[in-house]
Protein backbone atom coordinates (compact mmCIF):
# COMPACT_ATOMS: atom_id res chain seq x y z
CA UNK A 1 0.00 0.00 0.00
CA UNK A 2 1.08 3.51 -0.62
CA UNK A 3 3.81 2.24 -2.89
CA UNK A 4 3.17 4.73 -5.60
CA UNK A 5 2.95 7.73 -3.37
CA UNK A 6 6.02 6.58 -1.60
CA UNK A 7 7.87 6.33 -4.86
CA UNK A 8 7.01 9.95 -5.41
CA UNK A 9 8.46 11.16 -2.14
CA UNK A 10 11.51 9.08 -2.76
CA UNK A 11 11.73 10.51 -6.21
CA UNK A 12 11.58 14.07 -4.99
CA UNK A 13 14.27 13.33 -2.47
CA UNK A 14 16.44 11.79 -5.15
CA UNK A 15 15.86 14.63 -7.52
CA UNK A 16 16.99 17.18 -5.03
CA UNK A 17 19.92 15.07 -3.94
CA UNK A 18 21.02 14.43 -7.49
CA UNK A 19 20.62 18.01 -8.46
CA UNK A 20 22.72 19.16 -5.58
CA UNK A 21 25.42 16.93 -7.04
CA UNK A 22 25.21 18.86 -10.26
CA UNK A 23 23.46 16.27 -12.40
CA UNK A 24 20.32 17.90 -13.63
CA UNK A 25 17.53 15.67 -14.78
CA UNK A 26 14.53 17.92 -14.71
CA UNK A 27 12.80 20.72 -12.93
CA UNK A 28 11.16 20.55 -9.56
CA UNK A 29 9.67 23.06 -7.16
CA UNK A 30 12.44 24.66 -5.14
CA UNK A 31 10.50 24.36 -1.92
CA UNK A 32 11.26 20.67 -1.95
CA UNK A 33 14.99 21.16 -2.07
CA UNK A 34 16.49 20.37 1.33
CA UNK A 35 18.72 23.43 1.28
CA UNK A 36 15.79 25.79 0.79
CA UNK A 37 15.22 26.85 4.41
CA UNK A 38 18.91 27.61 4.95
CA UNK A 39 19.76 29.64 1.86
CA UNK A 40 16.46 30.86 0.50
CA UNK A 41 17.67 33.19 -2.23
CA UNK A 42 20.29 30.87 -3.64
CA UNK A 43 17.82 28.02 -3.49
CA UNK A 44 15.30 29.99 -5.52
CA UNK A 45 17.92 30.80 -8.13
CA UNK A 46 19.08 27.20 -8.17
CA UNK A 47 15.53 25.88 -8.38
CA UNK A 48 14.80 28.08 -11.38
CA UNK A 49 18.08 27.08 -12.99
CA UNK A 50 17.22 23.42 -12.53
CA UNK A 51 13.79 23.88 -13.99
CA UNK A 52 15.28 25.56 -17.04
CA UNK A 53 17.92 22.87 -17.34
CA UNK A 54 15.20 20.24 -17.11
CA UNK A 55 13.21 21.85 -19.90
CA UNK A 56 16.35 22.18 -22.01
CA UNK A 57 17.10 18.49 -21.50
CA UNK A 58 13.58 17.51 -22.56
CA UNK A 59 13.71 19.76 -25.61
CA UNK A 60 17.09 18.35 -26.63
CA UNK A 61 15.83 14.80 -26.21
CA UNK A 62 12.70 15.62 -28.18
CA UNK A 63 14.66 17.18 -31.03
CA UNK A 64 17.23 14.36 -31.04
CA UNK A 65 14.68 11.54 -30.92
CA UNK A 66 11.71 12.85 -32.87
CA UNK A 67 13.33 15.56 -34.98
CA UNK A 68 14.73 13.39 -37.78
CA UNK A 69 11.47 11.47 -38.23
CA UNK A 70 9.31 14.59 -38.14
CA UNK A 71 11.61 16.39 -40.57
CA UNK A 72 11.45 13.43 -42.96
CA UNK A 73 7.67 13.24 -42.69
CA UNK A 74 7.51 16.92 -43.63
CA UNK A 75 9.62 16.19 -46.71
CA UNK A 76 7.13 13.58 -47.90
CA UNK A 77 4.52 16.29 -48.46
CA UNK A 78 6.71 19.19 -49.48
CA UNK A 79 6.98 20.75 -52.89
CA UNK A 80 9.58 23.44 -53.37
CA UNK A 81 11.72 23.75 -50.26
CA UNK A 82 14.91 25.75 -50.30
CA UNK A 83 17.51 26.11 -47.60
CA UNK A 84 17.34 27.96 -45.26
CA UNK A 85 13.56 28.10 -45.13
CA UNK A 86 12.11 26.56 -41.98
CA UNK A 87 9.19 24.99 -43.82
CA UNK A 88 8.39 24.17 -47.46
CA UNK A 89 6.97 26.82 -49.76
CA UNK A 90 4.19 24.61 -51.09
CA UNK A 91 2.72 21.21 -50.36
CA UNK A 92 2.17 18.33 -52.78
CA UNK A 93 1.27 14.67 -52.96
CA UNK A 94 3.31 14.05 -56.10
CA UNK A 95 5.82 11.90 -54.22
CA UNK A 96 3.01 9.61 -53.11
CA UNK A 97 1.65 9.31 -56.64
CA UNK A 98 5.09 8.49 -57.95
CA UNK A 99 5.59 5.71 -55.39
CA UNK A 100 2.20 4.13 -55.94
CA UNK A 101 2.48 4.33 -59.72
CA UNK A 102 5.90 2.72 -59.85
CA UNK A 103 5.40 -1.04 -60.43
CA UNK A 104 8.84 -1.86 -59.03
CA UNK A 105 8.12 -0.13 -55.74
CA UNK A 106 4.66 -1.66 -55.52
CA UNK A 107 6.11 -5.10 -56.13
CA UNK A 108 8.74 -4.63 -53.42
CA UNK A 109 6.05 -3.62 -50.95
CA UNK A 110 4.10 -6.77 -51.69
CA UNK A 111 7.22 -8.89 -51.34
CA UNK A 112 8.10 -7.40 -47.97
CA UNK A 113 4.66 -8.22 -46.64
CA UNK A 114 5.04 -11.77 -47.91
CA UNK A 115 8.44 -12.49 -46.46
CA UNK A 116 8.02 -11.00 -42.99
CA UNK A 117 5.08 -13.18 -41.83
CA UNK A 118 6.59 -16.33 -43.31
CA UNK A 119 9.94 -15.73 -41.67
CA UNK A 120 8.26 -14.92 -38.35
CA UNK A 121 6.18 -18.10 -38.45
CA UNK A 122 9.16 -20.25 -39.40
CA UNK A 123 11.31 -18.70 -36.72
CA UNK A 124 8.62 -19.26 -34.08
CA UNK A 125 8.15 -22.89 -35.01
CA UNK A 126 11.87 -23.57 -35.02
CA UNK A 127 12.89 -21.60 -31.94
CA UNK A 128 10.07 -21.98 -29.40
CA UNK A 129 10.80 -25.64 -28.59
CA UNK A 130 14.44 -24.75 -28.16
CA UNK A 131 13.55 -21.85 -25.89
CA UNK A 132 11.45 -24.20 -23.79
CA UNK A 133 14.24 -26.74 -23.59
CA UNK A 134 16.80 -24.10 -22.61
CA UNK A 135 14.58 -22.90 -19.81
CA UNK A 136 13.30 -26.21 -18.44
CA UNK A 137 16.09 -28.75 -18.89
CA UNK A 138 19.65 -28.72 -17.66
CA UNK A 139 21.33 -30.76 -20.37
CA UNK A 140 25.06 -31.04 -21.00
CA UNK A 141 26.32 -28.29 -23.29
CA UNK A 142 23.37 -26.04 -22.50
CA UNK A 143 25.47 -23.08 -21.49
CA UNK A 144 27.86 -23.66 -24.38
CA UNK A 145 24.95 -23.57 -26.84
CA UNK A 146 23.52 -20.41 -25.27
CA UNK A 147 26.87 -18.71 -25.59
CA UNK A 148 27.37 -19.96 -29.15
CA UNK A 149 24.02 -18.49 -30.04
CA UNK A 150 25.29 -15.21 -28.68
CA UNK A 151 28.56 -15.53 -30.59
CA UNK A 152 26.72 -15.87 -33.90
CA UNK A 153 25.30 -12.45 -33.15
CA UNK A 154 28.82 -11.05 -32.90
CA UNK A 155 29.94 -12.00 -36.40
CA UNK A 156 29.50 -9.06 -38.76
CA UNK A 157 26.57 -9.71 -41.06
CA UNK A 158 28.32 -8.66 -44.27
CA UNK A 159 31.16 -11.11 -43.70
CA UNK A 160 28.63 -13.79 -42.90
CA UNK A 161 26.61 -13.14 -46.04
CA UNK A 162 29.67 -13.24 -48.27
CA UNK A 163 30.69 -16.56 -46.86
CA UNK A 164 27.13 -17.82 -46.77
CA UNK A 165 26.89 -17.13 -50.48
CA UNK A 166 29.23 -20.06 -51.05
CA UNK A 167 26.98 -22.40 -49.11
CA UNK A 168 23.90 -21.05 -50.86
CA UNK A 169 25.46 -21.57 -54.30
CA UNK A 170 26.21 -25.19 -53.54
CA UNK A 171 22.68 -25.73 -52.20
CA UNK A 172 21.14 -23.91 -55.17
CA UNK A 173 19.45 -21.40 -52.90
CA UNK A 174 20.72 -18.28 -54.66
CA UNK A 175 17.92 -16.19 -56.07
CA UNK A 176 15.22 -18.39 -54.55
CA UNK A 177 12.36 -17.59 -52.23
CA UNK A 178 13.59 -20.16 -49.67
CA UNK A 179 17.06 -18.65 -49.74
CA UNK A 180 15.70 -15.23 -48.81
CA UNK A 181 13.58 -16.76 -46.04
CA UNK A 182 16.64 -18.51 -44.62
CA UNK A 183 18.85 -15.44 -44.76
CA UNK A 184 16.21 -13.38 -42.96
CA UNK A 185 15.52 -16.17 -40.48
CA UNK A 186 19.15 -16.21 -39.36
CA UNK A 187 18.82 -12.71 -37.94
CA UNK A 188 15.83 -13.66 -35.78
CA UNK A 189 17.04 -16.87 -34.14
CA UNK A 190 18.87 -15.28 -31.21
CA UNK A 191 16.06 -13.22 -29.68
CA UNK A 192 13.37 -15.67 -30.77
CA UNK A 193 15.15 -18.14 -28.50
CA UNK A 194 16.32 -15.86 -25.68
CA UNK A 195 13.21 -13.83 -24.93
CA UNK A 196 10.73 -16.74 -24.75
CA UNK A 197 13.29 -18.79 -22.79
CA UNK A 198 13.39 -16.11 -20.11
CA UNK A 199 9.59 -16.01 -20.07
CA UNK A 200 9.34 -19.79 -19.69
CA UNK A 201 11.85 -19.64 -16.84
CA UNK A 202 9.70 -17.06 -15.09
CA UNK A 203 6.72 -19.46 -14.97
CA UNK A 204 6.81 -21.47 -11.76
CA UNK A 205 7.14 -25.15 -12.48
CA UNK A 206 4.40 -25.82 -9.93
CA UNK A 207 1.81 -24.30 -12.29
CA UNK A 208 2.68 -26.93 -14.89
CA UNK A 209 2.80 -29.66 -12.27
CA UNK A 210 -0.61 -28.69 -10.95
CA UNK A 211 -2.03 -29.05 -14.46
CA UNK A 212 -0.37 -32.45 -14.87
CA UNK A 213 -1.81 -33.38 -11.50
CA UNK A 214 -5.40 -32.80 -12.60
CA UNK A 215 -4.84 -35.03 -15.57
CA UNK A 216 -3.56 -32.90 -18.45
CA UNK A 217 -0.99 -34.44 -20.79
CA UNK A 218 2.32 -32.67 -21.47
CA UNK A 219 1.16 -31.10 -24.75
CA UNK A 220 -2.07 -29.87 -23.24
CA UNK A 221 -0.14 -28.42 -20.32
CA UNK A 222 2.09 -26.54 -22.72
CA UNK A 223 -0.74 -25.12 -24.79
CA UNK A 224 -3.20 -24.43 -21.97
CA UNK A 225 -0.86 -23.27 -19.18
CA UNK A 226 2.69 -22.51 -20.25
CA UNK A 227 2.02 -20.91 -23.60
CA UNK A 228 -0.69 -18.45 -22.47
CA UNK A 229 1.48 -17.31 -19.56
CA UNK A 230 4.50 -16.79 -21.79
CA UNK A 231 2.40 -15.31 -24.62
CA UNK A 232 3.30 -11.64 -24.06
CA UNK A 233 7.03 -12.36 -24.26
CA UNK A 234 6.53 -14.62 -27.28
CA UNK A 235 4.52 -11.84 -28.88
CA UNK A 236 7.34 -9.38 -28.28
CA UNK A 237 9.84 -11.83 -29.79
CA UNK A 238 7.57 -12.39 -32.80
CA UNK A 239 7.16 -8.70 -33.39
CA UNK A 240 10.90 -8.20 -33.21
CA UNK A 241 11.29 -11.08 -35.68
CA UNK A 242 8.77 -9.53 -38.00
CA UNK A 243 10.55 -6.20 -37.88
CA UNK A 244 14.00 -7.76 -38.25
CA UNK A 245 12.82 -9.59 -41.35
CA UNK A 246 10.99 -6.53 -42.66
CA UNK A 247 14.10 -4.44 -42.06
CA UNK A 248 16.71 -6.84 -43.45
CA UNK A 249 18.40 -5.50 -46.57
CA UNK A 250 21.95 -6.69 -47.26
CA UNK A 251 21.37 -10.42 -46.97
CA UNK A 252 18.16 -10.19 -48.96
CA UNK A 253 19.95 -8.20 -51.62
CA UNK A 254 22.82 -10.68 -51.87
CA UNK A 255 20.61 -13.77 -52.02
CA UNK A 256 17.42 -12.44 -53.59
CA UNK A 257 18.75 -10.34 -56.46
CA UNK A 258 17.36 -10.02 -59.07
CA UNK A 259 14.10 -11.88 -58.33
CA UNK A 260 13.33 -10.66 -54.83
CA UNK A 261 13.84 -6.98 -54.08
CA UNK A 262 12.10 -6.06 -50.83
CA UNK A 263 11.27 -2.59 -49.56
CA UNK A 264 14.44 -1.93 -47.50
CA UNK A 265 16.60 -3.25 -50.35
CA UNK A 266 14.80 -0.91 -52.72
CA UNK A 267 15.40 1.87 -50.23
CA UNK A 268 19.16 1.86 -50.89
CA UNK A 269 18.61 2.43 -54.60
CA UNK A 270 15.93 4.98 -53.88
CA UNK A 271 18.17 7.07 -51.65
CA UNK A 272 20.74 7.33 -54.40
CA UNK A 273 18.63 7.51 -57.56
CA UNK A 274 15.25 9.10 -56.82
CA UNK A 275 14.22 12.59 -55.73
CA UNK A 276 14.41 13.12 -52.00
CA UNK A 277 10.66 13.40 -51.71
CA UNK A 278 10.07 9.91 -53.08
CA UNK A 279 12.53 8.43 -50.62
CA UNK A 280 10.73 10.27 -47.83
CA UNK A 281 7.36 8.89 -48.90
CA UNK A 282 8.76 5.40 -49.20
CA UNK A 283 10.31 5.73 -45.71
CA UNK A 284 6.98 6.67 -44.21
CA UNK A 285 5.35 3.66 -45.87
CA UNK A 286 8.11 1.37 -44.68
CA UNK A 287 7.80 2.64 -41.11
CA UNK A 288 4.02 2.12 -40.86
CA UNK A 289 3.97 -1.60 -40.01
CA UNK A 290 6.69 -1.17 -37.40
CA UNK A 291 4.91 1.69 -35.72
CA UNK A 292 1.60 -0.17 -35.70
CA UNK A 293 3.12 -3.37 -34.33
CA UNK A 294 5.25 -1.69 -31.72
CA UNK A 295 2.43 0.52 -30.53
CA UNK A 296 0.44 -2.68 -30.14
CA UNK A 297 3.16 -4.38 -28.08
CA UNK A 298 4.51 -1.30 -26.33
CA UNK A 299 3.17 -2.27 -22.93
CA UNK A 300 4.91 -5.64 -22.99
CA UNK A 301 8.16 -4.32 -24.41
CA UNK A 302 8.32 -1.60 -21.78
CA UNK A 303 7.33 -4.08 -19.11
CA UNK A 304 10.72 -5.71 -19.31
CA UNK A 305 9.90 -8.70 -21.52
CA UNK A 306 12.65 -7.68 -23.88
CA UNK A 307 15.18 -6.93 -21.18
CA UNK A 308 14.54 -10.20 -19.35
CA UNK A 309 15.73 -12.16 -22.35
CA UNK A 310 19.22 -10.77 -22.26
CA UNK A 311 20.23 -12.11 -18.88
CA UNK A 312 22.21 -15.27 -19.44
CA UNK A 313 21.02 -18.00 -17.07
Amino acid at each position, binding site marked *: MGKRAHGQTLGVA*VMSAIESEGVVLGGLPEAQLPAAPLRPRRAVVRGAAHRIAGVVFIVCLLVFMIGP*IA*WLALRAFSGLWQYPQLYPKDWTLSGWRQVFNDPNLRHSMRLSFEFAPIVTAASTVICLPAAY*AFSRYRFPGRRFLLISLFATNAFPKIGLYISMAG*VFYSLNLMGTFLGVVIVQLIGTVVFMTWIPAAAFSAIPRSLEEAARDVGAGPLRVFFRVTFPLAAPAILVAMILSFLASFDEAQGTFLVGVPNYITMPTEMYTLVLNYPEQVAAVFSILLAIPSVVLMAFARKHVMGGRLAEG*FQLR
Partner: protein
Amino acid sequence: MVLPPVAVIAVFIGFPVVAAIAYTLGRAGGPNSVVASLGQRQFIVQKGVTFDAYRDILSNPTIHRDLWATVWVTIVVTLVVVAVSWAIALYLRLTDSWLARTISALSVVPLFIPVVIASYAILVFYASDGFIKTVAYHLGFHGFPTLGYTLTCVTLGEIWVNIPFGVLMMSSGLNGVPNNLIEAARDSGATMPRVVRSILLPMNVIPTVIVATFTAIYVLGSFTVPYLTGPTAPNLLGPSMANFFNSFNQPQQAEVLAIVVFVLALGIGAVYVWANVRTGRRSGLQS
Protein backbone atom coordinates in the same frame (compact mmCIF):
# COMPACT_ATOMS: atom_id res chain seq x y z
CA MET B 1 13.97 -29.75 -29.04
CA VAL B 2 17.10 -27.67 -29.20
CA LEU B 3 18.16 -29.35 -32.40
CA PRO B 4 16.27 -27.33 -35.07
CA PRO B 5 17.65 -23.87 -34.27
CA VAL B 6 21.07 -25.31 -33.50
CA ALA B 7 21.04 -27.07 -36.85
CA VAL B 8 19.95 -23.89 -38.64
CA ILE B 9 22.67 -21.94 -36.87
CA ALA B 10 25.29 -24.62 -37.50
CA VAL B 11 24.55 -24.96 -41.20
CA PHE B 12 23.91 -21.34 -42.09
CA ILE B 13 26.16 -19.52 -39.62
CA GLY B 14 28.61 -21.93 -37.99
CA PHE B 15 29.67 -23.61 -41.19
CA PRO B 16 30.01 -20.35 -43.20
CA VAL B 17 32.01 -18.77 -40.37
CA VAL B 18 34.42 -21.71 -40.32
CA ALA B 19 34.61 -21.59 -44.12
CA ALA B 20 35.24 -17.84 -43.95
CA ILE B 21 38.11 -18.34 -41.52
CA ALA B 22 39.60 -21.03 -43.78
CA TYR B 23 39.23 -18.73 -46.78
CA THR B 24 41.06 -15.86 -45.09
CA LEU B 25 43.85 -18.29 -44.30
CA GLY B 26 44.22 -19.14 -47.96
CA ARG B 27 42.04 -22.22 -48.37
CA ALA B 28 39.74 -21.83 -51.37
CA GLY B 29 38.23 -25.30 -51.54
CA GLY B 30 34.73 -26.53 -50.68
CA PRO B 31 32.15 -23.84 -50.02
CA ASN B 32 34.68 -21.14 -50.82
CA SER B 33 35.25 -22.32 -54.40
CA VAL B 34 32.45 -20.26 -55.96
CA VAL B 35 33.47 -17.02 -54.26
CA ALA B 36 37.15 -17.74 -54.84
CA SER B 37 36.61 -18.36 -58.55
CA LEU B 38 35.24 -14.82 -58.95
CA GLY B 39 37.41 -12.82 -56.59
CA GLN B 40 40.53 -10.87 -57.33
CA ARG B 41 43.80 -10.32 -55.48
CA GLN B 42 43.49 -13.53 -53.53
CA PHE B 43 46.15 -15.33 -51.49
CA ILE B 44 45.56 -19.03 -51.94
CA VAL B 45 47.56 -22.01 -50.78
CA GLN B 46 46.91 -25.69 -51.45
CA LYS B 47 48.44 -26.96 -48.21
CA GLY B 48 48.79 -25.37 -44.76
CA VAL B 49 47.76 -21.78 -44.17
CA THR B 50 48.95 -18.33 -45.14
CA PHE B 51 48.46 -15.01 -43.40
CA ASP B 52 49.17 -13.05 -46.57
CA ALA B 53 45.59 -11.84 -46.89
CA TYR B 54 45.75 -10.43 -43.35
CA ARG B 55 49.13 -8.87 -44.08
CA ASP B 56 47.80 -7.36 -47.30
CA ILE B 57 44.79 -5.70 -45.79
CA LEU B 58 46.25 -4.73 -42.44
CA SER B 59 49.09 -2.89 -44.19
CA ASN B 60 46.56 -0.83 -46.12
CA PRO B 61 46.63 2.73 -44.69
CA THR B 62 42.96 3.32 -45.60
CA ILE B 63 42.03 0.32 -43.51
CA HIS B 64 44.08 1.66 -40.62
CA ARG B 65 42.04 4.82 -40.67
CA ASP B 66 38.79 2.82 -40.94
CA LEU B 67 39.85 0.63 -38.04
CA TRP B 68 40.58 3.62 -35.84
CA ALA B 69 37.34 5.30 -36.90
CA THR B 70 35.46 2.12 -35.99
CA VAL B 71 37.13 1.80 -32.61
CA TRP B 72 36.57 5.45 -31.73
CA VAL B 73 32.97 5.60 -32.86
CA THR B 74 32.30 2.36 -30.97
CA ILE B 75 33.84 3.71 -27.77
CA VAL B 76 32.04 7.06 -27.95
CA VAL B 77 28.66 5.53 -28.83
CA THR B 78 28.97 2.93 -26.07
CA LEU B 79 29.91 5.50 -23.44
CA VAL B 80 27.16 7.91 -24.44
CA VAL B 81 24.49 5.20 -24.67
CA VAL B 82 25.43 3.79 -21.26
CA ALA B 83 25.52 7.24 -19.66
CA VAL B 84 22.29 8.54 -21.21
CA SER B 85 20.33 5.35 -20.64
CA TRP B 86 21.55 5.24 -17.03
CA ALA B 87 20.44 8.81 -16.46
CA ILE B 88 17.04 8.26 -18.07
CA ALA B 89 16.46 4.92 -16.35
CA LEU B 90 17.47 6.35 -12.98
CA TYR B 91 15.07 9.22 -13.42
CA LEU B 92 12.28 6.84 -14.43
CA ARG B 93 13.00 4.56 -11.48
CA LEU B 94 12.83 7.35 -8.94
CA THR B 95 9.97 9.46 -10.20
CA ASP B 96 6.51 8.93 -11.55
CA SER B 97 5.37 12.09 -13.31
CA TRP B 98 4.19 13.12 -16.75
CA LEU B 99 7.73 14.28 -17.39
CA ALA B 100 9.10 10.81 -16.64
CA ARG B 101 6.46 9.19 -18.82
CA THR B 102 7.22 11.58 -21.67
CA ILE B 103 10.92 10.86 -21.46
CA SER B 104 10.30 7.13 -21.35
CA ALA B 105 8.02 7.32 -24.39
CA LEU B 106 10.52 9.47 -26.31
CA SER B 107 13.46 7.22 -25.58
CA VAL B 108 11.93 4.12 -27.15
CA VAL B 109 10.78 5.76 -30.39
CA PRO B 110 13.74 4.38 -32.42
CA LEU B 111 12.56 0.86 -31.62
CA PHE B 112 9.57 1.64 -33.83
CA ILE B 113 11.60 2.72 -36.84
CA PRO B 114 13.47 0.45 -39.30
CA VAL B 115 17.19 1.21 -39.33
CA VAL B 116 17.25 2.07 -43.05
CA ILE B 117 14.64 4.76 -42.49
CA ALA B 118 16.29 5.99 -39.33
CA SER B 119 19.63 6.34 -41.09
CA TYR B 120 18.07 8.19 -43.98
CA ALA B 121 16.06 10.44 -41.68
CA ILE B 122 19.14 11.26 -39.62
CA LEU B 123 21.16 12.02 -42.74
CA VAL B 124 18.50 14.41 -44.02
CA PHE B 125 18.14 15.98 -40.58
CA TYR B 126 21.84 16.81 -40.27
CA ALA B 127 22.42 17.45 -44.00
CA SER B 128 23.60 20.70 -45.54
CA ASP B 129 19.95 21.75 -46.01
CA GLY B 130 18.71 19.87 -42.93
CA PHE B 131 16.92 20.97 -39.82
CA ILE B 132 20.02 21.54 -37.69
CA LYS B 133 21.69 23.77 -40.30
CA THR B 134 18.45 25.64 -40.90
CA VAL B 135 17.87 26.34 -37.21
CA ALA B 136 21.52 27.29 -36.74
CA TYR B 137 21.20 29.69 -39.68
CA HIS B 138 18.14 31.35 -38.19
CA LEU B 139 19.89 31.63 -34.84
CA GLY B 140 22.70 33.48 -36.57
CA PHE B 141 25.27 30.69 -36.92
CA HIS B 142 25.70 30.99 -40.67
CA GLY B 143 28.89 28.97 -40.74
CA PHE B 144 27.50 26.03 -38.77
CA PRO B 145 29.24 22.85 -39.97
CA THR B 146 27.30 20.30 -41.99
CA LEU B 147 27.18 17.04 -40.03
CA GLY B 148 25.72 14.87 -42.80
CA TYR B 149 28.27 12.44 -44.28
CA THR B 150 30.67 12.81 -41.33
CA LEU B 151 31.69 10.42 -38.57
CA THR B 152 29.86 12.69 -36.14
CA CYS B 153 26.65 11.95 -38.03
CA VAL B 154 27.44 8.22 -37.86
CA THR B 155 27.99 8.53 -34.11
CA LEU B 156 24.71 10.42 -33.61
CA GLY B 157 22.89 7.84 -35.73
CA GLU B 158 24.32 4.89 -33.81
CA ILE B 159 23.40 6.54 -30.51
CA TRP B 160 19.87 7.15 -31.79
CA VAL B 161 19.49 3.52 -32.82
CA ASN B 162 20.89 2.09 -29.58
CA ILE B 163 19.20 4.31 -26.96
CA PRO B 164 15.94 2.32 -26.64
CA PHE B 165 17.67 -0.96 -25.89
CA GLY B 166 19.83 0.83 -23.31
CA VAL B 167 16.90 2.49 -21.60
CA LEU B 168 14.80 -0.70 -21.58
CA MET B 169 17.64 -2.79 -20.15
CA MET B 170 18.63 -0.25 -17.51
CA SER B 171 15.03 0.42 -16.52
CA SER B 172 14.34 -3.26 -16.19
CA GLY B 173 17.47 -3.67 -14.09
CA LEU B 174 16.70 -0.72 -11.83
CA ASN B 175 13.08 -1.77 -11.43
CA GLY B 176 14.41 -5.08 -10.22
CA VAL B 177 15.98 -3.34 -7.22
CA PRO B 178 13.31 -3.50 -4.50
CA ASN B 179 12.27 -0.25 -2.88
CA ASN B 180 13.14 -1.50 0.57
CA LEU B 181 16.80 -1.95 -0.37
CA ILE B 182 16.89 1.74 -1.19
CA GLU B 183 14.99 2.60 1.98
CA ALA B 184 17.29 0.45 4.10
CA ALA B 185 20.24 2.44 2.79
CA ARG B 186 18.45 5.74 3.45
CA ASP B 187 17.71 4.46 6.94
CA SER B 188 21.40 3.74 7.48
CA GLY B 189 22.13 7.37 6.74
CA ALA B 190 22.90 7.35 3.03
CA THR B 191 22.04 10.40 0.96
CA MET B 192 20.40 9.77 -2.40
CA PRO B 193 23.62 10.13 -4.48
CA ARG B 194 25.22 7.69 -2.09
CA VAL B 195 22.32 5.26 -2.56
CA VAL B 196 22.85 5.47 -6.31
CA ARG B 197 26.58 4.81 -5.92
CA SER B 198 26.48 2.11 -3.25
CA ILE B 199 23.24 0.29 -3.99
CA LEU B 200 21.81 0.98 -7.46
CA LEU B 201 25.11 1.05 -9.33
CA PRO B 202 26.54 -2.22 -8.02
CA MET B 203 23.16 -3.94 -8.26
CA ASN B 204 22.77 -2.90 -11.88
CA VAL B 205 26.14 -4.09 -13.13
CA ILE B 206 24.75 -6.86 -15.33
CA PRO B 207 22.31 -4.66 -17.29
CA THR B 208 25.07 -2.08 -17.67
CA VAL B 209 27.45 -4.72 -19.02
CA ILE B 210 24.73 -6.03 -21.33
CA VAL B 211 24.00 -2.56 -22.70
CA ALA B 212 27.69 -1.78 -23.16
CA THR B 213 28.58 -5.07 -24.85
CA PHE B 214 25.55 -5.28 -27.11
CA THR B 215 25.88 -1.66 -28.14
CA ALA B 216 29.59 -2.06 -28.86
CA ILE B 217 29.07 -5.26 -30.82
CA TYR B 218 26.22 -3.70 -32.76
CA VAL B 219 28.27 -0.64 -33.71
CA LEU B 220 31.35 -2.69 -34.64
CA GLY B 221 29.42 -4.77 -37.14
CA SER B 222 26.93 -2.17 -38.28
CA PHE B 223 26.50 -1.38 -41.92
CA THR B 224 23.36 0.59 -42.62
CA VAL B 225 23.96 3.61 -40.38
CA PRO B 226 27.57 4.29 -41.46
CA TYR B 227 26.85 3.40 -45.09
CA LEU B 228 24.02 5.91 -45.42
CA THR B 229 25.16 8.69 -43.09
CA GLY B 230 28.96 8.40 -43.09
CA PRO B 231 31.73 9.79 -45.30
CA THR B 232 33.35 7.80 -48.12
CA ALA B 233 36.57 7.45 -46.15
CA PRO B 234 37.45 6.93 -43.43
CA ASN B 235 34.27 5.13 -42.49
CA LEU B 236 33.47 2.18 -40.25
CA LEU B 237 34.61 -1.31 -41.20
CA GLY B 238 31.06 -2.43 -42.05
CA PRO B 239 30.84 -0.31 -45.23
CA SER B 240 34.52 -1.05 -45.98
CA MET B 241 33.73 -4.77 -46.06
CA ALA B 242 30.89 -4.15 -48.46
CA ASN B 243 33.19 -2.00 -50.57
CA PHE B 244 35.89 -4.64 -50.81
CA PHE B 245 33.30 -7.20 -51.83
CA ASN B 246 31.05 -5.18 -54.15
CA SER B 247 33.26 -2.45 -55.58
CA PHE B 248 36.77 -3.92 -55.51
CA ASN B 249 35.70 -7.54 -55.96
CA GLN B 250 38.10 -8.68 -53.25
CA PRO B 251 36.01 -11.09 -51.14
CA GLN B 252 39.00 -12.46 -49.26
CA GLN B 253 39.91 -9.01 -47.99
CA ALA B 254 36.29 -8.40 -47.01
CA GLU B 255 36.30 -11.63 -45.02
CA VAL B 256 39.56 -10.69 -43.30
CA LEU B 257 37.89 -7.49 -42.13
CA ALA B 258 34.89 -9.49 -40.94
CA ILE B 259 37.17 -11.76 -38.92
CA VAL B 260 38.94 -8.74 -37.41
CA VAL B 261 35.60 -7.27 -36.33
CA PHE B 262 34.47 -10.69 -35.10
CA VAL B 263 37.56 -11.05 -32.92
CA LEU B 264 36.99 -7.57 -31.44
CA ALA B 265 33.33 -8.40 -30.83
CA LEU B 266 34.18 -11.73 -29.22
CA GLY B 267 36.56 -9.94 -26.87
CA ILE B 268 33.70 -7.67 -25.83
CA GLY B 269 31.32 -10.62 -25.67
CA ALA B 270 33.66 -12.38 -23.26
CA VAL B 271 33.07 -9.55 -20.79
CA TYR B 272 29.32 -10.15 -21.07
CA VAL B 273 29.64 -13.88 -20.43
CA TRP B 274 32.10 -13.37 -17.60
CA ALA B 275 29.87 -10.83 -15.86
CA ASN B 276 26.86 -13.13 -16.13
CA VAL B 277 28.71 -16.14 -14.77
CA ARG B 278 30.27 -14.17 -11.93
CA THR B 279 26.95 -12.75 -10.74
CA GLY B 280 25.32 -16.15 -11.13
CA ARG B 281 27.88 -17.61 -8.73
CA ARG B 282 27.47 -14.95 -6.09
CA SER B 283 23.71 -15.08 -5.92
CA GLY B 284 23.79 -18.85 -5.72
CA LEU B 285 21.86 -19.23 -8.96
CA GLN B 286 24.65 -21.04 -10.71
CA SER B 287 23.35 -23.58 -13.14
